């Protein structure tokens, strides 16, 4: 990129300045250019394409059929329900367990080594996903998995006789939890660090109980982080594809799995419907982001 163009970008349509007082260039613009380029090419343009192609029939003509089937076709409605429930379940459960774990190591007075160990583990586990993660669970908890076999041979307990299987939405939730709650730990630990001892002492000096402290001091401070992380966990599970596919093929009917079948199937092939399904996901994410922004503003009201 040439110097001139930087100057133009940096100053907008600046009038020709007198030569003695050169206008100051804000070089910070240079730093954000890659981000905006990236956002345009990989977020805004694709979203626009998805929107447009949602109205495309397999033969390329214009149609509302795809959008209508989002609300009328049973397997699509089921898929949205399944995707939403697994995302909400794992976001809530991940948030609760992750928070408790982070609380235990940060404020629970455990030896410092535990914290190092846990955060290192969380860093690894929160990035462990996709085919390797699915296979790890199959190999430990599947029908011929290590744990399953061990329970059979050592404990003499055939877990499958009880009707248990990991190949359903609960099993997949457990798999997702493996990367959900470590992420919560990673984000909550620094936030809990931010709680100063003095605040608690101040609360106690004013006669407040532990309950008062959490209700009126700690939670209001943590709430924005908690909400933000939960929406992150929700999106993390909502958009997951490879893990679910490697785990149980298209057996568990998720929106992402349906999209995969529409755009790259050997048999089904209706990219327009795939785009419409993706559009539905974008809308749901938008709604949850707006909800998040609203809650966030409420939660942060006391700071103003």
């Amino acid at each position, binding site marked *: 990129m040439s110097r001139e163009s930087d100057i133009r970008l940096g100053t907008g349509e600046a009038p020709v300045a007198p030569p003695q007082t050169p206008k100051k260039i804000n070089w910070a613009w240079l730093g954000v250019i890659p981000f905006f380029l990236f956002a345009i090419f990989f977020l805004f343009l694709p979203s626009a394409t998805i929107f447009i192609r949602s109205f495309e029939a397999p033969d390329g003509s214009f149609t509302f059929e795809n959008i209508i089937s989002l609300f009328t076709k049973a397997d699509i409605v089921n898929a949205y329900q399944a995707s939403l429930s697994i995302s909400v379940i794992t976001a809530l459960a991940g948030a609760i367990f992750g928070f408790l774990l982070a609380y235990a190591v940060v404020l629970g007075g455990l030896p410092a080594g535990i914290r190092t160990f846990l955060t290192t583990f969380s860093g690894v586990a929160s990035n462990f996903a996709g085919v390797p993660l699915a296979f790890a669970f199959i190999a430990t908890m599947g029908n011929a998995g290590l744990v399953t076999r061990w329970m059979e041979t050592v404990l003499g307990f055939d877990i499958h006789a009880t009707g248990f299987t990991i190949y359903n939405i609960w099993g997949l939730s457990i798999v997702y939890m493996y990367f959900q709650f470590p992420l919560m730990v990673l984000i909550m630990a620094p936030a809990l660090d931010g709680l100063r001892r003095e605040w608690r002492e101040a609360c106690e000096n004013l006669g407040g109980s532990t309950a008062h402290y959490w209700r009126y001091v700690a939670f209001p401070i943590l709430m924005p982080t908690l909400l933000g992380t939960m929406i992150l966990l929700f999106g993390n599970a909502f958009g997951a594809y490879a893990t679910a596919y490697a785990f149980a093929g*298209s057996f568990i009917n998720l929106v992402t799995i349906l999209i995969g079948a529409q755009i790259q199937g050997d048999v089904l092939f209706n990219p327009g419907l795939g785009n419409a399904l993706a559009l539905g996901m974008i809308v749901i994410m938008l709604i949850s982001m707006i909800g998040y922004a609203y809650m966030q503003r409420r939660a942060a009201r006391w700071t103003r």
Partner: protein
Amino acid sequence: MTTSEKRPMSRRDFLKLSMAAGFSAWLASCAPKAAETGELPVTMSMDDLVAGATKEGELTTIALPHDWANYGEIIETFKSKYNMKVNELDPNAGSADELAAIEANKESRGPQAPDVVDIGVGHTANAMTKGLLGAYKVSTWDSIEMKDPDGYWWAEYYGVLAFEVSKPAIENTPQDWEDLLKPEYKGKVAMAGAVDKSNEAVQTVMAAGLSRSGGDIEKAPEMGLQFWKEMNDAGNFIPVIADIGPISQGETPLAIQWDYLGLANRDKLAGNPEIEVVVPKTGVIAGPYAGGISAYAPHPYAARLWWEFVMSDEGQNLYLKGYAHPIRFNDMASRGVVPQEMLDRLPPAENYAKATFLTVEQLQVANKYIVENWRKVVLGEG
């Protein structure tokens, strides 16, 4: 075929994917229609082909995994025999991806445009309607037993769906489809793909149906779904996709797959676990794959030379080495050009005598019915 993303597909990945698709579609739509490479005649002499291909120097293939029907050796032999470079695009692409690759690159004859494709026979109709294939008849054309009369596609090899049984996890080897419903196989029967994505999995439903309907092709799709409903209700069906990972680990001890893939797995796993490949007594369905040349091939001579090689006795025997049945098998066997040691490695020939070959129309009808009703009938959704 499988996808192999190492991470869950995030929303952003999705956006990128659709962006790429959208962008190439836009490119394709706004460029002017170019003349097809159809100017080459339907038959050509080997001398002309070799001369033309040598000048091009390169061939672009797609969706040819090296452990599938011995494609690794076929490609290597072709390279050294004709001194050609071979540019291999995504080996794990499915048939629809292959056709999409031709369509998206109509106007840009660079290294990302495939010259030749290897697709499920059911896809040929779609490919021809869209004008994606060029016509050519190899010199061995007359002995090819399944082909388009005008030379737009021809079968190269086939296999039959077989049970890939792991020992000793499965004590009693099942011999026919109905055996798979027995309680002893609870949580053990797996497919090699997902029904709404994979042709192989759809044929698995079809084959079970053919077994039940006594060979009646029209009734088979419905009866196949009924069979798999019983399988799922009994808890015998395990939805893990049976590729070599879960098979060797033991999660999918009873996988249903093309026989040549099962036999190749048996060799590769070399006894850990021991694999037995059983062709069922009834409901034997043949899965031929069809070869074709892109109508927009950047290397039209090399593409034709490739098929001359693959469809020659030498190329066809290489398929057989990978346990896939060459489509010219009967002709070659009658002329005695199939080496005896290769014949000895195959399962008994009578297994294949009963194989049902479906026509393109039958495949299309059956595929549509099975995919559209799979969730409703088998999984009880909707």
